[in-house]
């Protein structure tokens, strides 16, 4: 019996079964896709804990994203103002209309000046009476207290601070001018405050990104711990590290995506809640209706992308650290 066994043995080729290269190449993508959705399926099996983790990530991501949106709008608003960049010339009282028009024409020939607008003191008083709510009180005044006003717009080619200063000096020398006013200081202060705000958002953003990494890392660590026996079996039957790692990485990705989706939702809900009173406030200031609107597509996309990347990174760190420790015994 054993002799017949021997002839059989020598006739049988002992070669391990291997898939074709082309098949392995194609299967690589097919399996990736399968694991991609398999890991999503695993998450959906425990919807409550998945949602809890994703919400924690969402809140951590929403905070810097929301602050960024507000700051972005604020700097856009101040951007509008700075482009106005105008100089107000308050004229001395008792100048004739003709004289003021002469000055206006003369100024308009100056290459540093783009445009000069005359605001007539009578027209100004009329507007003030109509809009300020002090109409009756103003009627009680004998004289119009408002001066004539020339608003000077510096030309685009002469808009840096040095040139503006030279222009200011020139304008101050006109003897009919009572006061020259350039409201640039408050703008500079606003910019400084916005700058601090941006740094603040950067710091908060970095800290919370670290928080996201830690949350995902810890969640994946628990998932690895829960599936210890499965990992052991995989290793025993020849699963490579990257094969075993894959579902955990995709789990991290899904957490990141879910978290950032929740963050987008939270930020937009907050914006909607803030928008109404904000529009009301700006209408009280009689300014153009100012509203924050919803999150821009670019900011949302950036948020989603960084959420996914943070999820992947957190998972990669956890997997790299904990998978090596699990070996068959």
């Amino acid at each position: 019996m054993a002799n017949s066994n021997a002839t059989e043995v020598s006739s049988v080729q002992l070669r391990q079964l291997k898939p074709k290269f082309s098949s392995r190449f194609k299967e690589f993508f097919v399996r990736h896709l399968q694991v991609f959705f398999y890991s999503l399926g695993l998450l959906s099996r425990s919807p409550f804990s998945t949602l809890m983790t994703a919400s924690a990530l969402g809140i951590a991501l929403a905070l810097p994203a929301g602050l960024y949106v507000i700051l972005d709008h604020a700097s856009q608003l101040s951007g509008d103002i700075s482009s106005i960049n105008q100089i107000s010339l308050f004229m001395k009282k008792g100048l004739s209309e003709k004289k003021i028009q002469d000055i206006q024409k003369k100024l308009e020939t100056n290459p540093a000046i783009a445009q000069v607008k005359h605001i007539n003191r009578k027209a100004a008083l009329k507007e003030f009476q109509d809009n300020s709510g002090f109409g009756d009180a103003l009627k009680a005044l004998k004289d119009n207290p408002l001066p004539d006003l020339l608003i000077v717009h510096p030309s685009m080619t002469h808009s840096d601070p040095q040139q503006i200063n030279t222009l200011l000096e020139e304008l101050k020398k006109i003897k009919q001018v009572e006061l020259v006013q350039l409201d640039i200081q408050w703008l500079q202060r606003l910019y400084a405050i916005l700058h601090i705000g941006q740094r603040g958002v950067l710091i908060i953003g970095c800290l919370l990104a670290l928080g996201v990494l830690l949350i995902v890392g810890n969640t994946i660590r628990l998932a690895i711990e829960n599936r210890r026996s499965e990992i052991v079996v995989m290793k025993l039957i020849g699963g490579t590290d990257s094969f075993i790692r894959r579902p955990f990485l995709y789990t991290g990705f899904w957490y990141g995506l879910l978290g950032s989706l929740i963050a987008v939702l939270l930020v937009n809900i907050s914006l909607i809640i803030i928008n109404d009173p904000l529009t009301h406030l700006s209408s009280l200031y009689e300014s153009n209706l100012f509203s924050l609107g919803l999150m821009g597509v670019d900011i949302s996309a950036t948020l989603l992308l960084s959420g996914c990347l943070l999820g992947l990174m957190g998972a990669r760190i956890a997997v790299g650290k904990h998978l090596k420790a699990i070996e068959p015994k």
Partner: protein
Amino acid sequence: MILFDQVSKRYPGGNEALTKVNFHLHPGEMAFLTGHSGAGKSTLLKLIALIERASTGNVIIGGKNLNKVSRHTLPYLRRNMGIIFQDYQLLYDRTVFDNVALPLIISGFSSREVKKRVHAALDKVGLLRFEKKYPITLSGGEQQRVSIARAVVNKPALLLADEPTGNLDPELSREIMDLFMAFNQVGVTVLIATHDIPLINQLNKRIIQLSHGQLNQDQKLSDQPLTSGEV
């Protein structure tokens, strides 16, 4: 296929599980590894499966010195062995089909190939009708047969089994052993650790006996073929 050359294994703490073990299992050979509890049977199998590394000496499997196998290439070597455990080591959240398919999926076979080969393997162990069931609903003997199907599904050259019949009654044990014999018949090298002496005495195969970590007796059968120096 398997060559042990002066192999010793000392665990941290000083416990020497194997002392200067020498033996040679030829391709296509089948042998039983016996000995009392703690004689070093499991350690010997773990050295072959690269779960443990030898402290001294060389373990050579299919011409490869296991001392020189890196962490990175280790999985590819394991794909060439089918390993069977006393406690089956099945994944209980997956169906019988998915359990058996796992080694093929790891190697990157196409879904069609996987289906074909899993069905073939399940057919061989007589469990084709259970493919959609979960392992937990099967009896011990059936679960062990699932794990055997998983071990042979990618047609490895070497089958290792650690007490595969440890939890089974004599009749089922005999059925399992017959399965191993059948795989050996088609050329698979088989090494089975067991202490079921009455059973293996019926089977007329080589018996390697360990005692306190040393090779006590290597009972080669007179009619067992010794093919050329192949390893």
